[in-house]
């Protein structure tokens, strides 16, 4: 099952987070039960990744800012920052169009955490970078 679907129906990770607060299980154990969206990480195009994330109807948004150098001295380490100004941002995904697998990372942003993330990705070749943001149950993207 797709973890996003689990989140949508309000079970899964939400219930586990509650259990953590109650001190029933330690964070590490909660992680062991966490899922990894294999289907999404195996997609090979931006459209397929969007579909796998449940965001096929995504709209382009100017409120998502992608910061990356125009030239990476080394494609093995490309620093990327994604910042969303869309209210109620819940998740940010990073997609590298030309990589063998398009989806690079998917971050869940709980309330109280800034819709801002910096990480470093590998790029197989010159490529466009897409950010996909889930906010208020809807999907948005930017390139």
């Amino acid at each position, binding site marked *: 099952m797709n973890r996003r679907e689990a989140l949508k129906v309000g079970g899964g990770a939400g219930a586990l*987070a509650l259990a953590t607060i109650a001190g029933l299980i330690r*964070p*590490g154990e909660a992680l062991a039960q966490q899922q990894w969206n294999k289907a999404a990480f195996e997609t090979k195009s931006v459209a397929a990744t969007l579909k796998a994330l449940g965001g096929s109807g995504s709209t382009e948004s100017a409120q998502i800012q992608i910061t990356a150098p125009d030239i990476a001295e080394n494609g*093995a380490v490309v620093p990327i920052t994604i910042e969303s100004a869309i209210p109620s941002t819940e998740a940010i995904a990073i997609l590298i169009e030309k990589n063998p697998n398009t*989806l690079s990372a998917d*971050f*869940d942003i709980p309330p109280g955490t*800034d819709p801002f993330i910096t990480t470093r*990705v590998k790029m197989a070749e010159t490529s466009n970078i897409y950010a996909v943001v889930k906010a208020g149950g809807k999907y948005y993207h930017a390139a």
Partner: protein
Amino acid sequence: MADPMRIRANMLGDKVEVRVLMAHEMETGQRKDASGAIVPAHFIQNVTVTHAGKTVLSAQWGTSISKNPFMHFRFKGGKPGEKVTITWVDNKGERRTDEAVIGGGS
């Protein structure tokens, strides 16, 4: 066992700014070794950051996150002296948990 992470957590206004480096090969599963054999994929799949028992960030990663991964983010509700705990789990089930004490203004 995996080497420790380096976590820096500092107050930035009313937010906690977290920067973390993790020691991990992040093998793509596409690289060949000297003898031409494929090196199996070995990469972090899940990262969870907690503060005061609450998850403040969770992530799923693929093989294209760089070796020795770096992450930078900010959350509200933390105070100097409190702890931030970060755990990663990779595709072989190896894991590592480290924590850092939130420092004053950076």
